[in-house]
Structure formats: structure tokens, C-alpha cells
């Protein structure tokens, strides 16, 4: 029994936890970056929107409306989330990484990304970065 529990402890690795949670951060970051890009100009909004055309209700006018470029942001985020989760999982599934440090990084990054969706805080920074790249 003791032996079995020891082998179980050895079999468990924290790599999959880091893989799953880092993929989440990248997905939320993609959501944030694509959102800010789409707000810079109608052309960029259309570009982001085009990734979401496959979602029913992504286009249309009138009282029933449409989801708009939000669909493109969702599609990009889902793509980054699932692909990076798979890649990180395959890379780290047999590794044991320090979760004490990673938990802090994960929670702080989530708070920072969340604040990135709060326009009064994020807009000045977005405009500064966009100006640096010569974007409208």
C-alpha cells in the first residue's frame, strides 16, 4: 500500500498544470490584443472579424444585429488556447515544475490581463504602442 502510494506520487508531475494554465493566459492575452487591434481602425476590425465568419450570427445588420468582430477575437483566442495547451502539455507532461512560484505568476498575470480590458487604464498604453508601430 505504502509502495503503491509512493509510486503514485512519483507518477504525478506538475507539468500538465503549468501547460493548461499558461495556455489559458495566452488565450486571454490573445483576446485582449486582438480586441485592442480591432479598435484601431475599421480595416483592422474587418481583418479580426474575418477569422470569426464561421460562427453563425457573426455578420448581419438590422434589429437582430450580429456578433461582429467579437467572433474573430473568440476564434483567435480558442485557437491559441487549444493549440498552445496541446503543445505545452506534450512538452512538459513528464516534468515537475515549481507550482509555488507559478501560482503567483498565474494569478498576477490574470489580474494584469483583466485590467487590460479596462479602457480608461489600457487605452493610453495601447495608443502609445500603436503609435510606436505607426498604426492609426
Amino acid at each position, binding site marked *: 500500500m505504502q509502495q503503491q*502510494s509512493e509510486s503514485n*506520487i512519483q507518477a504525478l508531475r506538475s507539468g500538465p498544470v503549468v501547460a493548461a494554465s499558461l495556455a489559458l493566459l495566452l488565450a486571454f492575452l490573445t483576446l485582449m490584443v486582438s480586441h485592442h487591434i480591432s479598435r484601431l481602425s475599421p480595416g483592422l476590425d474587418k481583418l479580426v472579424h474575418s477569422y470569426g465568419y464561421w460562427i453563425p450570427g457573426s455578420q448581419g445588420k438590422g*434589429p437582430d*444585429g450580429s456578433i461582429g468582430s467579437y467572433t474573430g477575437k473568440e476564434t483567435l483566442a480558442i485557437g491559441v488556447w487549444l493549440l498552445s495547451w496541446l503543445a505545452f502539455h506534450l512538452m512538459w507532461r513528464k516534468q515537475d515544475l515549481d507550482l509555488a512560484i507559478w501560482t503567483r505568476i498565474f494569478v498576477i498575470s490574470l489580474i494584469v490581463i483583466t485590467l487590460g480590458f479596462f479602457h480608461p487604464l489600457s487605452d493610453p498604453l495601447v495608443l502609445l504602442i500603436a503609435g510606436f508601430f505607426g498604426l492609426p
Partner: protein
Amino acid sequence: MSTGHYTHDNFGKIVIRAQVGIALALLLCLPLANFWFPSAYSLKAGIHGLSAILALVVGTYLTHRALPLIKGMHVNLESLRRWLLVATLLNLAGAISGNWIYMRYRGQDGPRDWILERVPAIHNVLMEFKEFVSLFPFPLMLSATALLYYYGLPMQTRRDLCRFVGITILVSWSFLMLGFVVGLVLAKLRFV
């Protein structure tokens, strides 16, 4: 006077369960009433409201299940992962129905137009924030669920893994609350 653990007797349990049942039923009346609102979009609004409230109720319940996990106490993982699966599905339903109702929100003479004309900051700041943070709970819950199924029951032997999953549940709940409260403010301000 002794100060031991207080344990509820049978009557106490009946009172608590009745209170939870009545509160839940009344809470569900909030979105259920949407189905009878005088709007062509009442069905969409009702389904989104119902899935959002149910996701919030289950998410809140799960925060109580997450605390022993964080503290490293022995928990019933089989039951917890089933509840997490339910929470994941409810959050997915909330996100899909949210997309559905969002169409009308953005539609001609819809709530967005009305709000932009009168209180633009509510759309430009609150709604633009809400529509994204409301997407967070589903992947967070799915991630926690997947990890519990991936590691299986031996996971209890690793406190750091359990702690991380517990924290993920708490974080997911905070985004659920943020999205829910702002959604309620918007629906109160201008119904679809």
C-alpha cells in the same frame, strides 16, 4: 460554558435546506421572468439569464468545495470533478447564449445604441470589459475539470496540484461575479 463544535440537528438541517431551496427558487424567478417580458428577444434573454444564474450558483457552491482543496484536506474528488463538469457546461451555455443575445444588443436601436446615446461610458467601459471577462470562467473551469480527470484520485497525494486547482476555481468564480453583476446592470438599464 463549553465551546465545542456546533452540529446541526435534524430540524436545523431541514431549516437550512428549506432556506436554500426557497432562495434558489426565488433567484431563478429573476431570469425566468424574462420569458414573459414584452420583447421579441425575451427567449434569448431568458436562456442567457437562466444559464448565467445557474453558472453563478454552481460556481459559488464550488468555492466552498475549493477551500478544503487549497488547505490540503481530504476531499471527495469524484464528486468534485462531476460538479466541475456541470459548472463547465453551464459556463459554456452562458457564453454561447451570451453571444446569441449580444447580437440584439448590437442590433439597430438595440441596447447599445440606446446606451451610447445617453450614458456612453456604460458601453465603452463597462460592457467592453464585461464581454471579455465573461468569457474567462468557461476555459478556467474546463481546465480545472480536465486536470482533475487527468490526474485521477491519486492527485490528493500532491497538495500543490490540489491547491492550484482550488485557486483556479476561486479565480473563475471572481470573473463569474464580475460578468454577472455588470450583465445585470446592463439588463436593468436597457432590456433587449
